[in-house]
């Protein structure tokens, strides 16, 4: 119990960020017209691709003789990049079509 309470204090910055981001996320999306739901979902999908940063850190820290970490880390970098690049390109493609006419 004490340990868990201590965790809260130790991570209070992070916890504050979480709380603020939860409200911000809801606030930002709350005003989206339904027409933009698909691009929005896709854009949000690309943004959580920020997980790639974790993959890069894992990869960059792995010692050169730890093949398990190297292989898993490499896979993580590839998949994370797919998520980021694919996500943004798909979203851009959708939005490009919205813009053409007017």
């Amino acid at each position: 119990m004490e340990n868990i309470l201590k965790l809260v204090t130790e991570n209070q910055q992070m916890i504050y960020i979480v709380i603020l981001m939860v409200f911000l996320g809801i606030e930002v999306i709350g005003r989206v017209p339904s027409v933009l739901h698909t691009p929005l979902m896709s854009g949000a999908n690309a943004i959580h691709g920020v997980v790639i940063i974790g993959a890069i850190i894992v990869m960059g820290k792995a010692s050169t003789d730890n093949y398990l970490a190297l292989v898993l880390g490499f896979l993580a970098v590839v998949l994370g990049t797919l998520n980021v690049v694919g996500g943004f390109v798909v979203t851009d493609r959708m939005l490009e079509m919205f813009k053409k006419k007017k």
Partner: protein
Amino acid sequence: MQLDILTIAYIIGSVTFILGLKMLSNPLAARKGNLIAAGGMTIAIFATIFLYQTEDGQGLHNYAWIFSGLIIGSIIGTLAAKKVKMTAMPEMVSMFNGMGGACAALISAVEFDHVYREFRLDSNSFAAVVPFGHYFTISAGAIIGGVSFAGSMIAWGKLNGRVKDFTFNGQHIVNLLVFGFIVVVAGLTYWSNTSVTNIWFLITILTALVYGVMFVLPIGGADMPVVISLLNSFTGVAAACGGFLYNNKVMLTGGILVGAAGTLLTILMCKAMNRSLMNVLVGSFGTKHTASGGPAKQAGNHKEITVTDAAMLMSYAKKVFIVPGYGLAVAQAQHTCHELEKLLEEKGVEVKYAIHPVAGRMPGHMNVLLAEADVSYDKLLEMENANDEFKSTDVVLILGANDVVNPAAKNDPSSPIYGMPILEVEQAKTVIVNKRSMKPGYAGIENDLFYQPKTSMLFGDAKAALQKLIAEIKNV
């Protein structure tokens, strides 16, 4: 100095994510918003590669691996995203989402391997070597990422027809048991303190994958958008776990932002169908209700219309509404549809589109599809506005939509879709329904609209039917 620049890069990244999401909510700024977020992401990625330092002040190495991974991922990602057809967009999003989930799970796996090695060296108790908070984020990232990956793959397979719905009695109880099992194994990994802790962890991940599959399998294909949106927010949370792991604020910001926004989007989608998230996940749709709710009472009395008559009706109408649905997407008929619209407008007919929020396989699916065919943005009416205009409409042409125009949602309390807001097309003077057959729609329920006196059926593939219509209208 180096770390300060990294911090600034991360702050820029976080701000662009928030700005990007905000701008995505405005049709005119959306594209820019997406590019801004992408720019912020690029800055954050390269800052990490070159400026990141571990606790003991070491920079990152293995650049060859990192860059080849980035290049391979970028090439495949760009090609896949550029090549995908507009109709297959939801699948693509699901696929990319799954990749993100897998990435989060892999990161957790490597981090676990890391702490496991420390524990083996120390051979103390696992709990003494690894702080609980650290283990908790590792295992949460692994479980959530794994569920998201497996679930997204199933959702992807369902949307492109490779995976069929699969249900059995007591499935939800089995799923709950599987979930409980994951929690128990994850706990055992931490506290059991054996030398095979790594096997326990492996079992945790594998069960998470199984759970992801079982979680999505029973949910009907029509509900996949909701599921994808939910899994999208899962991946967001999994990414945020990585943020906790490395005390990395940009991962935390991005992940939680998407987690929160994705959850809200999921709830908004459910609301549009007037169902609770619970109801979607427990998914009674199309299985139990098919037989109930008095579907057969009017069956058999639909009437067909010939292409010539339909062409005649439409060319002499004042106002025509087109209601697109998944049938239009499947037939890739959006361009033909736009052609029909232009042709009718030349004849002085007012043509508009009525877009139901959940038409197609994803909210906004129809908008994207019609935008691809250059249909003007202001011709697309959202449900409420369209419902106000149906009274003054002469012809409503329904292209492969079904459940979103089913009056049972308004009149029949026993119907599973009762209470879902629908497009009230029956207020128009005539309704022409284009469908491939009399088969019920995705929700598996009969549609009384098809048997009403003012409704006539125009059977056939949407594209073929539209082409014939166009040819006939040119002759009128």
